[in-house]
């Protein structure tokens, strides 16, 4: 049996009386790449609250490497977050740090590597992502793709077992960030690193992902492999892929 890295079990998440996630269950194996997609307010953005934040109350359970994240105390939660690479669409680069300082921040804070080892490792990441020309610049001096690449490098600096990318590639020129896709493909090939991509554009990740999950109204309405994503006649999926306002989903 392949080892699971993440299990979401019957999660019901309610905030201010509104049910945002309703009976959500799925699991992610080691080495698996999953794309989670759906319309705005479908619940895909609220997965972050239950999987990543770890400090909100919800029904059901989320297990990371077999342990419930609900039982984590203050410090265990910090360690859990340290183990997960997370990148969101706002990127959150520290504005008074340069590119290389931003990338080395999690290593400086957490790792037992020496200063020289961190520098070498960060330089390698900078080289792999074609950021050499701007490694001394601060975020406000960077282009959009350079900001994404820096934030991406920072999210993988700690070699996380699970990488969670949330709307990170929206509004980006895919030609400029091709180096990121190369690194993602290499990570998936390692079989011990898992990936979750939350996006409105699942078709952009067909070459990377091997599982696709679609949300609507806080529920899972489609789940399948790459082939099923491409050829399924699921009415929700067809409506989503064809951008058709007519269908089972009522779009406001």
């Amino acid at each position, binding site marked *: 049996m392949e080892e699971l890295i993440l299990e979401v079990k019957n999660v019901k998440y309610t905030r201010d009386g509104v049910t945002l996630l309703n009976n959500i269950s799925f699991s992610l194996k080691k080495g698996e790449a999953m794309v989670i997609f759906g319309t705005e307010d479908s619940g895909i953005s609220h997965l972050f609250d239950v999987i*990543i934040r770890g400090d909100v109350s919800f029904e059901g359970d989320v297990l990371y490497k077999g342990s419930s994240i609900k039982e984590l105390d*203050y*410090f265990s939660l*910090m*360690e*859990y*977050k*340290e*183990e*997960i690479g*997370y990148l*969101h669409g*706002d*990127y*959150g*680069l*520290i*504005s*008074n740090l340069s590119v290389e300082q931003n990338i080395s*921040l*999690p290593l*400086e*804070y*957490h*790792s*037992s590597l020496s*200063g020289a080892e961190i520098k070498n490792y960060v330089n390698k990441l900078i080289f792999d992502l074609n950021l050499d020309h701007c490694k001394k610049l601060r975020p406000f001096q960077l282009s959009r793709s350079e900001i994404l690449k820096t*934030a991406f490098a*920072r999210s993988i600096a*700690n070699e996380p077992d699970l990488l969670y990318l949330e709307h990170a590639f929206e509004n980006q020129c895919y030609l400029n960030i091709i180096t990121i896709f190369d690194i993602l493909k290499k990570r998936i090939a390692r079989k011990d690193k898992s990936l979750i991509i939350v996006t409105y554009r699942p078709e952009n990740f067909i070459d990377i992902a091997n599982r696709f999950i679609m949300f609507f109204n806080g529920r899972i309405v489609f789940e399948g492999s790459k082939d099923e994503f491409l050829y399924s006649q699921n009415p929700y999926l067809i409506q989503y892929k064809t951008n058709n306002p007519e269908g089972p989903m009522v779009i406001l």
Partner: protein
Amino acid sequence: MIENTVIKIGSWAIDIRNGVKDFSLFIKSIVTSFKSLRYIRFRSLYTIIINQTRFTGVDALSIVIIIALLLGATVIIQALTSLPKFGVEGFLGNLLVIIIARELGPLATTLIVIARSGSAIATEISVQKWSKEILAMELMGIDTKLFIVFPRIIASILSIMGLIIIFDVVAFIGGYLIALTVIYIPMDTFGQTLIDSFTFKDITAALAKSILFGIAVPLICCYYGFKPNSKFEIPIFVSKAVIRTLFVAIIVNIAISTIFYLI
């Protein structure tokens, strides 16, 4: 009319109680975060402490020196010209030590730090929160309370302590030199009077003030820096940070002065 006044006072009291409770929770969260010290590498805090000390301490030197010169000269000229009229010129040294070293130096220095660094700290943290930099740090497993507040407290204590010493030295020496243009007093007499007047209590009082101001200024400014939930709230909370830190600084100054006079 009376009913409205009572309601206003009551709601004001509730606001104060809620504010104090919220601030207490903030301090508690900082104390809790100190436990994270064993999980982190000090090198990640070291750069922040250096940068904050440079901004709060070194970069503020010029303005502190100018204000120390002006205030020192004013106090020394007033003391040299007025005390003889009352026949108490023998207390010149005591008066200067009390006014400059124990009261004016710590308070004026702290007011400068609040105006420069307090507002900067609150603004920086607010903007970091708004641009989701703080969220990004939290999601990297970085204890933001420790990573942001702790280095600023250390830097603030070091800076305020250093600036107070410089303020006092400049106020005494520079003030004396400026005062020479108005009234003559031999340097050795002036110096000896000051040395004779300094007591261990004066030094302890100034030290206690520098440590308490060094903790209070970044703590209150960080607290308000973490408060804004939207961009338009940033100036509101930065303004609150500066005004309330000023208020607390004056209260702390009075409290410590009173304690040391009673001892």
